[in-house]
């Protein structure tokens, strides 16, 4: 029979832990109420059905839109062709009167000549202008006389001072935007990433790197840029990193790489917990929480115990920390009247500020 005395006895009996566990299991026994399970099952089916219905609706709407667009393109194309080749009215009348096709209405075999006659002596239509613009970059890049590979460009850019980038770009036959696109594309491969980022930093500076991270459609490039901003030992890049953390769209990705930084700027982040901007303070707290680890936790505990009233963000960072030390301290704070108020305040702020 279970009792305090035999529950934790330390008599060398290998079954004792098992007995303890069994009793804890017995104390934690809950039943999944059948009515509730059934209600949840129905809820799931309803949700699932609604989602399927929405998906079907979306699919049919996009099909309708696509077919409408195809019809519109077809009619617009036909209208354009009709406009460019107006049938002479006199020929039409003659064919109606004579009952025989006129010489002009006979299909021509000389296709080259016909095409020339379509465009000769008239300005290009809107459609032709768009088509030409769309084809232009490919044609231009094909004709680039002194084309340099993007790897060469990256290594050339990394070895020059910041002001001389225009000359290098011009000599390599790249515009600034095409170089940035190419370098971003190259940075998808981890072997070329550092070189490409060095070159990009020469072209767009640290603020530009953050913008590129936000605009990039490749998650791995976004993450690598965020890591670079965090790992670069400068206030400007750290603030740019924190602005990414502050942005809900990039928060998870930016925080996800925090642990990968070889030397995370813990000291700078602790200083930024007192920044004037609330968003910077919160982002610094979230980053410290994600960096976690006993060192960070110990620094945060020192901070909140030294100045408990002036450390709301440090409390937030501690709430975000995972680990035995943080758990122990928060449990301790929950029992100490001197700390409980600040702890609760931080929890409320957490719920309000960090969704």
């Amino acid at each position, binding site marked *: 029979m279970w009792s305090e005395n035999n*529950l*934790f006895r330390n008599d060398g009996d290998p079954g004792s832990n098992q007995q303890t566990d069994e009793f804890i299991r017995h104390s*934690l026994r809950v039943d999944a109420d059948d009515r509730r*399970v059934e209600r949840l099952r129905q809820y799931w089916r309803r949700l699932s059905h609604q989602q399927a219905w929405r998906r079907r609706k979306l699919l049919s709407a996009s099909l309708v839109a696509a077919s409408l667009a195809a019809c519109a393109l077809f009619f617009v194309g036909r209208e354009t062709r009709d406009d460019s080749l107006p049938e002479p009215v006199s020929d039409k009348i003659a064919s109606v009167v004579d009952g025989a096709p006129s010489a002009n209405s006979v299909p021509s075999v000389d296709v080259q000549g016909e095409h020339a006659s379509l465009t000769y002596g008239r300005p290009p239509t809107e459609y032709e202008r768009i088509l030409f613009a769309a084809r232009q970059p490919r044609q231009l890049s094909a004709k680039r006389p002194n084309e340099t590979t993007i790897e060469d460009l990256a290594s050339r850019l990394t070895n020059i001072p910041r002001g001389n980038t225009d000359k290098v770009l011009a000599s390599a036959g790249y515009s600034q935007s095409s170089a940035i696109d190419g370098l971003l594309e190259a940075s998808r491969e981890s072997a070329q990433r550092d070189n490409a980022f060095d070159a990009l930093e020469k072209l767009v500076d640290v603020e530009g790197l953050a913008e590129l991270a936000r605009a990039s459609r490749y998650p791995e490039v976004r993450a690598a840029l965020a890591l670079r901003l965090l790992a670069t030992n400068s206030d400007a890049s750290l603030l740019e990193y924190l602005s990414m953390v502050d942005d809900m769209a990039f928060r998870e990705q930016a925080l996800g790489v925090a642990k990968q930084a070889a030397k995370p700027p813990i000291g700078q982040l602790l200083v930024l917990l007192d920044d004037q901007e609330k968003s910077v303070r919160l982002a610094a707290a979230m980053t410290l929480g994600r960096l976690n680890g006993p060192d960070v936790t110990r620094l945060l505990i020192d901070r909140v115990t030294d100045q408990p009233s002036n450390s709301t963000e440090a409390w937030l960072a501690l709430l975000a920390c995972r680990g035995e030390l943080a758990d122990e301290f928060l449990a301790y704070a929950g029992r100490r009247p001197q700390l409980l108020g600040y702890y609760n305040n931080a929890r409320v702020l957490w719920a309000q500020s960090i969704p």
Partner: protein
Amino acid sequence: MSRPIDRHLVDQLVVEHLPVALRVAKRLVGNADSAEDVMQDALCRVLRHWKSYRGEAAFSTWMMQIVVNVAREHRRRSHEIHELTCDLAPVVTTDPLERLTVVELSEKVRAALDDLPDRQREFAMLRFGEDLPAREIATILQISEANVHSCVHLVRKRIAKTIGVDYVERE
């Protein structure tokens, strides 16, 4: 990467694991009504994110991870302390004194578990409540397996301390 699971299979698996998930939610938030709310939120998330499931862990582990996260958020939001109410298994004894002893002891153990820090409490509910293996608990709580093993001793030690007996770690 190809999608390893199709929509109908998700339906089946969710329905199959609902009772376990509800039990876990009930233990984590302390009462049945909140547990049902948590489960509804969790089901919404499952429906929103099922495509992100890549089959790296068992579906039940993935779903339990969502339930634990939602329960955690629920506890943070509510700012209430819910004491765990459990349905004790019938005590196999005719002696009313023994029965009373077991009930009292169970209450003490539950109180000790309620006093644990959040992370250890979650661990205890999964380890002792559902008897999940260490690897699965590590995946659900995103901690290392070594941490799981050390948590077992920590929880036993705390319960022993609350009950007022000495506990010495044994292997």
